[in-house]
């Protein structure tokens, strides 16, 4: 049992990357518009994040340094600061969206307007960060988020034509009124979400919080190879549900309600209840992940005492950053901005942050001073470089495609 619980850090991290509020909607939206024709992108994303998260886990276990330490060290103060600003803004925008997502899930369950839930949700996130032990936090929200597996059950229950889904998946191209531009835009959105920078910040910092040492190399790997593929699977299940239920009748997905509806159609009230709890846990987990990542990145860039492995008073600046970020989230959401739309703008900053985040990881994972005999092998390096190239292409294409397609319209 203890061994099983040891992989919850990977699961919670992956939930933040693959099924947070923005991804929930994007996955369903993509399924409704393209069927499974973008499914391969999720697979490519899973392999990429596994590759780099494994490197991070290894660096933490061997050298004890989290990702943003490496970024500042290898990119220097100035480029490091640029990376900090870009990745901090992505993370903050995502945090804002997640708090909104928690509130939206509560609205769906209760019928009470989501704006009323916003301050409560933000306060609850802060309270958990302030008081709950890191290991407890990752276990509870990681496991609860797994309730989203109900989407896979729902897909199976909807009785789709599997052959047709496979056919879509193996024919990656736009259909109907879609263009290559919109197809490319959503491909980048899915790929960027799978490799969103705060995943490696959170995962590596979590490894430090868990006090990983050389003997935990296997735990680190298990986290990566269980957590992220599971996240990808949830993501594909949501896409599949939308492909089966919405694509044939021309329904376009733009709300969280439409994301949850397939579970109700397939499994009734019980299915909906499980999905709502799952969405709540996943968005709440992602809110914790992003809020902590806001503190981790700034703390690690400046070298402040950070982390939940010390008491809040010993890491006062770290906790203060998170309090300010949560307060900002409430203020932004109370302007009635659509939380789902907020994540779309984060693409802009992600584009800048992505290559600069992953380059230092690849460099340090190769450094014999740091890694000794645990440094990267040739296969990892070739794959790492291929993915660095993909990230670079995605980051260059993201903003032009966003403008051409007017955000995927």
């Amino acid at each position: 049992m203890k061994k099983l619980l040891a992989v919850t850090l990977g699961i919670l991290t992956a939930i933040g990357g693959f099924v947070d509020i923005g991804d929930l909607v994007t996955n369903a939206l993509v399924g409704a518009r393209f069927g499974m024709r973008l499914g391969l992108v999720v697979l490519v994303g899973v392999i990429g994040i596994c590759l780099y998260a494994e490197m991070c886990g290894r660096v933490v276990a061997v050298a004890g340094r989290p990702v943003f330490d490496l970024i500042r060290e290898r990119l220097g103060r100035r480029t490091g600061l640029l990376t900090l600003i870009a990745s901090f803004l992505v993370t903050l925008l995502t945090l804002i969206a997640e708090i909104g997502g928690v509130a939206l899930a509560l609205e769906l369950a209760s019928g009470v307007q989501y704006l009323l839930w916003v301050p409560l949700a933000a306060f609850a996130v802060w309270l958990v960060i302030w008081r709950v032990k890191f290991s407890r936090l990752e276990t509870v929200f990681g496991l609860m988020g797994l309730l989203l597996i109900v989407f896979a059950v729902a897909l199976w229950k909807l009785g789709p034509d599997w052959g047709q889904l496979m056919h879509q998946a193996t024919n990656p191209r736009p259909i109907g009124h879609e263009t290559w531009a919109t197809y490319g835009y959503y491909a980048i959105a899915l790929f960027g979400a799978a490799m969103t920078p705060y995943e490696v910040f959170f995962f590596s910092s979590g490894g430090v919080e868990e006090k990983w040492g050389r003997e935990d190399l296997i735990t680190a790997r298990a986290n990566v190879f269980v957590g992220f593929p599971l996240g990808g699977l949830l993501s594909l299940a949501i896409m599949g549900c939308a492909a089966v239920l919405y694509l044939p009748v021309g329904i376009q997905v733009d709300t969280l309600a439409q994301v949850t509806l397939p579970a109700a159609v397939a499994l009734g009230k019980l299915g909906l209840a499980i999905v709502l709890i799952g969405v709540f846990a996943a968005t709440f987990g992602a809110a914790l992940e992003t809020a902590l990542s806001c503190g981790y990145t700034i703390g690690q860039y400046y070298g402040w005492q950070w982390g939940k492995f010390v008491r809040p008073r010993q890491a006062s600046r770290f906790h203060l950053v998170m309090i300010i970020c949560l307060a900002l989230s409430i203020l932004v959401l109370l302007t009635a901005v659509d939380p789902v739309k907020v994540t779309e703008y984060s693409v802009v900053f992600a584009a800048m942050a992505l290559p600069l985040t992953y380059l230092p990881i690849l460099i340090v994972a190769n450094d014999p001073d740091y890694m000794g005999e645990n440094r990267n092998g040739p296969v990892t390096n070739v794959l790492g470089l291929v993915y660095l190239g993909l990230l670079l292409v995605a980051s260059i294409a993201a903003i032009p495609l966003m403008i051409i397609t007017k955000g995927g319209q």
Partner: protein
Amino acid sequence: MSGRVLHAQLHLRDRQLIDQRNGRLLGKVDDVELDLEADPPVVTALITGEQRIPARLIAEIDTAVKISNEGLDLDHWDDWFERHIIDKIPGAGDKAD
């Protein structure tokens, strides 16, 4: 030739400073002070923010730089925010540690 070979930019600059005694994180190495007039020329101090850490306090250089935190005031701002904000919120931890 004996002794460990290091590079000032690669191994010292922008590395994490850690208190050798209790593992507390104390900031980053922003710059390195060199005495090039001395014979032989040597590293005399590490600089972090406004603070100067004399070379004699460097305990270990690894993936981070461990120092003995004697007579330095590296916790100034952390303490300031602790006293003025964080301590006022219930549950911030015991004063003792």
